[in-house]
């Protein structure tokens, strides 16, 4: 069970994020829900890379003068993927916050139940 604790954390975070998107009325809280869900998915991607007893994926020498073998390292591919995903999340968040500011300027409120112009 201990080995599965981080995955449980990811699931809980993702559910909190989805709850924020679905059940909250304030625009800022919806944006925060998306951000939290995004972080949960990135965390899950990092956890997939973990190998029990692995070292960081940088070539270096051990104490007895040997190079660290690649098979003793943690998988480095998801690290690059997470970097890209974090930047995409940043761009999405920045765009939605700019939208939220402009929506406040037009409607005067952050409540999405008041923004019902389009319907049908």
């Amino acid at each position, binding site marked *: 069970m201990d080995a599965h604790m981080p995955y449980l954390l990811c699931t809980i975070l993702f559910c909190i994020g989805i709850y924020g*998107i679905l059940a909250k009325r304030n625009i800022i809280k919806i944006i925060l829900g998306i951000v939290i869900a995004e972080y949960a998915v990135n965390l899950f*991607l990092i956890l997939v890379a973990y190998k029990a007893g692995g070292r960081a994926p940088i070539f270096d020498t051990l104490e007895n003068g040997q190079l660290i073998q690649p098979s003793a390292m943690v998988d480095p591919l998801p690290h690059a*993927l997470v970097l890209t995903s974090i930047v995409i999340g940043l761009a*999405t968040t920045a765009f*939605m916050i700019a939208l*939220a500011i402009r929506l406040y300027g037009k*409607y005067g409120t952050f409540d999405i139940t008041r923004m019902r112009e*389009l319907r*049908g």
Partner: protein
Amino acid sequence: MMITESTIPLFVAIPLAGAFLTAMLKRVKGIPDTLGVMSTICTFVMSVFAVMRLDIGERLLSNIGFWGGFSEVFGKIVGIQLVMDGLTSFMLVVVNLVAFIVAIYSVNYMTRYTAKWQFYSLFLLMVAGMNGVIITGDLFNLFVFLEIASLASYALVAFGTGKRELEASFKYAVMGGVGSLLILLGIIFLYSNTGTLNMGDMAVILSEQGMPSIIYLVFGLFLMGFGLKAALVPFHAWLPDAHPSAPAPISAMLSGVLIKALGVYAICRIFFNVFGFPEQISSLLMTLGAISMGVGALVALRQWDMKRLLAYSSISQVGYIMLGIGIGTPLAIAGALFHLFNHSIFKSLLFLDSGAVEYATHTRDLKQMGGLSKRMPITSTTTLIGAMSLAGIPPFAGFWSKLLIIVAAVQANHFGYAIWAVIISIITIGYVLKITRFAFLGTLRKRFSDIREVPAFMRISLIVLALICIFGGLLILPAIRGGFIGQAVSALLMGKGA
């Protein structure tokens, strides 16, 4: 110009360079228009050359950075690969043709909005993202390009910055963001199971080792995520708000190519070439397609806003394409891809027409229009051609593609779906008549008595699209079909059989 392996990345590099050069040189007069039109001309011409060069079943591969040269390193593919096969070249022609015509149209239409260079910059970014989704052979690279195209489209929907545009764009951004998260989760599960991100490698590993039981969760995640991008029915709620609020050329791009390049193409590529095509997916896609057809057509009948009606009609037609793909026989897939091509052409034509109507009369409400055919002959004729193609009236192109799908459904013993498709065709004729009668026939109102026909570039793009609608029916002849759509069908089916 020969298409070789090393020219494949240019499909992404040229629009990307165009987008950033436009942002740098924004003060120079006329630069955004020229760069936009030039970039899309280049990619369109290159895509036509690509179709002419490939034979059936042939594939071009290109490793980014030339890692591993021509062979594999450690027995695996290292690095990102770009693939050009029949389906890729077909989709490239569709996307770049519509992008080129929309770029010409925007030269005149976007003078009403203030910042033209921002429009062209975002537009070229969107085209670069869509081209990237089509040519990539690596699953995470597909996700990155999908996000590039989606973010550019969120910003373009909000371009007018009025109340409704902002609300529609926010809704679209939130739903699109959730869809992308579901796709990323599916990719993570697949990576942790197979150890590779290359789609070809993954297909080999999955067919050798059989499907792990987590594959059903991945099916569900991918269907939800890509279904949201393609506006299949439970996930379509963003489309009727986002497509009318965008400026008309962007509505044409969104409805015509974005939902197909990001949604339908990705579903085809992943479910056929990576997973092999399992039985449950076939029936699920057919059901979702049939529901989409019904919901889209029935709600479209109630609309009085011209662009909102066309948006619901898009949902209905994507349902047709999904039905064709779900059936899975070669004739059905050929019909579905042909319908994809046709729908891109005539839906873009209809949205550009509605933009022309809005440019001249400043309204989108069908109840306030009437009799525009007397003052705007070219717009009304092209709308009539596009509408007849949408309704499936012979000899226009839409008739042949719908016929192929219905015949394929009958051949595969799905008589219920075939009858449902015919019924929805009849309802389609209903809302098409609604547009034609209320906007163009009837008496001209007094306040519209001095409107004029739209400017030159807009007219050219409308006429070109209408001509393709008329002559597109020729694509059903086996000689031409084998070269164009047949390559795409065989590329998809290679994955299914193997």
